[in-house]
């Protein structure tokens, strides 16, 4: 029981990361129907911007932890958002009416480019972050002496994720920007006729997705204390699995899917085999697509002649 609770806590923390990345996939898929393959690498850039911001703050002597964290989050979201915008503007906009495969290939190229670009500029080695927050609350202790710990770091991660997701949901639901975004998602041509600036909305979608991925990158960096240029590939695929599991195109689905994938991965590693945990995630992807193609909260996709 204690082991179970501990695994659940760890899984939810990891799931928060996947959920934040998955939103970017699901929004982009919803609005222009393409898999933004470079999104995992945008997440990786978010992590790199975070660690560089941290070191710059260190140079200026800002070491008060809450301020440093807020600075890292804001900087990561801003600069990564710019990267997301540039990726769409350079790589995808010209291909909006191209054959279906063209944007996907372009996205794969973008992904390869970003990975190697970061490797070229920042080196191939792991980038370690000194532990900023340590300690935690001991929730319960079993008779065998196994202690369930909820780290302060995990609390901060969960609170941050919740705040970001609530803010983001409100933005999509309440603001004019969110309304335009949803309108474009439903019918781009009609939205354009009604005066919505479609190009701008799509750009904003990419910026929002990238900013959320940047938050995920920061969380990853804080939680694992390490980042490298290759981290985006696997995390990206798992987050995509989360988006599919939740039902692609659905924002709450992406969040739920992310949490589920995180929990499943951690439980599989904890109870069965750590070596095959990635295989387990891919297996879920396959099973979901075969038996539940619309995902948990997705809308059915009707094929019309």
């Amino acid at each position, binding site marked *: 029981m204690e082991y179970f609770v501990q695994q659940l806590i760890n899984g939810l923390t990891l799931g928060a990361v996947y959920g934040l990345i998955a939103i970017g996939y699901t929004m982009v898929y919803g609005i222009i129907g393409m898999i933004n393959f470079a999104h995992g690498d945008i997440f990786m850039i978010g992590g790199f911007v975070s660690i560089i911001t941290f*070191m710059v703050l260190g140079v200026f002597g800002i070491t008060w932890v809450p301020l440093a964290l807020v600075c890292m989050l804001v900087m990561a979201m801003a*600069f990564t958002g710019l990267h997301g915008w540039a990726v769409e503007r350079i790589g995808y906009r010209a291909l909006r009416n191209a054959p279906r495969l063209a944007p996907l*290939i372009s996205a794969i190229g973008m992904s*390869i*480019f970003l990975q190697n670009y970061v490797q070229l*500029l920042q080196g191939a080695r792991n980038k370690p972050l*000194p532990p900023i927050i340590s300690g935690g609350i001991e929730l319960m202790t079993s008779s065998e002496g196994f202690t369930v710990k909820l780290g302060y770091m995990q609390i901060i991660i969960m609170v941050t994720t919740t705040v970001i997701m609530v803010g983001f949901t409100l933005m999509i639901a309440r603001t004019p920007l969110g309304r335009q975004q949803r309108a474009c998602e439903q019918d781009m041509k009609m939205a354009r006729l009604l005066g919505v600036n479609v190009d701008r909305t799509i750009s904003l979608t990419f910026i929002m997705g990238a900013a959320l991925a940047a938050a995920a990158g920061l969380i990853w960096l804080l939680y694992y204390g390490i980042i490298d240029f290759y981290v985006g590939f696997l995390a990206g695929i798992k987050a995509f699995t989360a988006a599919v599991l939740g039902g692609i195109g659905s924002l709450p689905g992406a969040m739920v899917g992310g949490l589920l994938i995180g929990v499943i991965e951690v439980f599989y590693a904890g109870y069965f085999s750590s*070596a095959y945990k*990635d295989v387990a995630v*891919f297996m879920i992807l396959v099973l979901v697509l075969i038996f539940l193609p619309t995902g948990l909260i997705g809308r059915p996709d009707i094929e019309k002649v």
Partner: protein
Amino acid sequence: MAAIGAGAERQLSFGEMIRDAAAVALVALGLALPLVGFQTVDRGAGMILETRFGAMFYAVGVIFVGRFVLGLIDAGRGRPILAASGAFSAAWVLNAIFDVAPPIEHVTLGWLTWLVAMTIALRAWFVLRRGARPAGRDGTRAGALPAVWLERVGRLVVPAALTFAVVMPFLPFADQRLVDLGILVLTYTMLGWGLNVVVGLAGLLDLGYVAFYAVGAYSYALISINLGLNFWETLPFAGAVAAFFGVALGFPVLRLRGDYLAIVTLGFGEMIRLILLNWDDLSNGAKGIGDIPRPSFFGLQFTAAPREGVAAFHEYFDLDFSPIHRVIYLYYIILILALLTNWFTLRIRKLPIGRAWEALREDEIACRALGINPTTTKLTAFAIGATFGGFAGSFFATRQGFISPESFNFIESAIILAIVVLGGMGSQLGVVVASVVLIGGPEWFRDLGTFRMVAFGALMVAVMIWRPQGLLAHRDPTVRLPAAPGRPP
């Protein structure tokens, strides 16, 4: 002037051009600031931060100038700019070749400068050419030009390329490096042709093709080591195992459409790799399998000192021993295998099953209505594509003599798919051109290291934007009505 600015865009004034270039430079500055401006340097256990503001501002400056000059081209000042930028980039290349004086210490920035100058020159050239032609055909020309060109030149190029491929190892300039490169290009050409069956003909986007390559390589290694069979005896088994995997992996996912299928096949590719990595008893895990038997020429070994009772190739033919004999032999094996793939594909396109693939690619619902069974049709495509992937994998295993899961990661699948799509889906010649460009080019510049992959990624994006339908997008109709008498064909 009007003909040059043929687009609907309004001519920008000088001030607006400056403002536009400044905006682009500002974005570039924002992109460059965190990742170019600062560098994390490993120092002992921790890291220190170094700044590269000089390089950053230089890069941003180059982008500003470049954007401004692009604006000038669109405003009709193409001719002097073409001359200036062309001369500049030519001088740069000559300088690099003859190594006169490095204009900038920084290698990366030097390449960036050259790249911007080249882009400007190309753009100016295109704009001038467009201006010189009558306007009004802009939309159609982009796709039509290579098709016409292909039909005219194809008849000449194909036999010439084939002859070159056959005699290449015996040409005076062919050293071991070049023949090795030829082997690599042909391997990817074969993989491209194999994947073309799945992606180009049947229209099923497969991002996990490397799985079959891996299955072929591992089944070749395991069969030939454990059962002692030689290359040609093992090849059919390796192909059959790969085909079995093609069907087994294809069966559950064939109901999925396009992008979903892509991701699931990607997942399968990664699963196979992870299983090979972790199933130590079967695959020896990350350490890989070594000492895979080399192919022999009708029983003749390509070794300097063959085992007792086995003839060596150079002794039998009374030649001096040279390692290049084996390389050349491998070259011809892969040439034959690749041509076999191509010939098979060209023939099967004309069979009912080939026609069914292409029909399925165009419209699945219509196919079902016409009584084509989509499941078996797709499965055949998967199985045949996988078989060729398995053959190529066997060849890879025997060529390297050592395989490990490391060789079969996602990037390989991406490269093979890029070859198919960049070449122009369904175009057999396009695959050859794309694999020469994508594999031969970067491999020749292997010294550049990480630059190579940066350029590879950028090239994929650039080619897709320039020609979304692929380099040689030319879909030959499989069925052509005979020309009616009295009408020109």
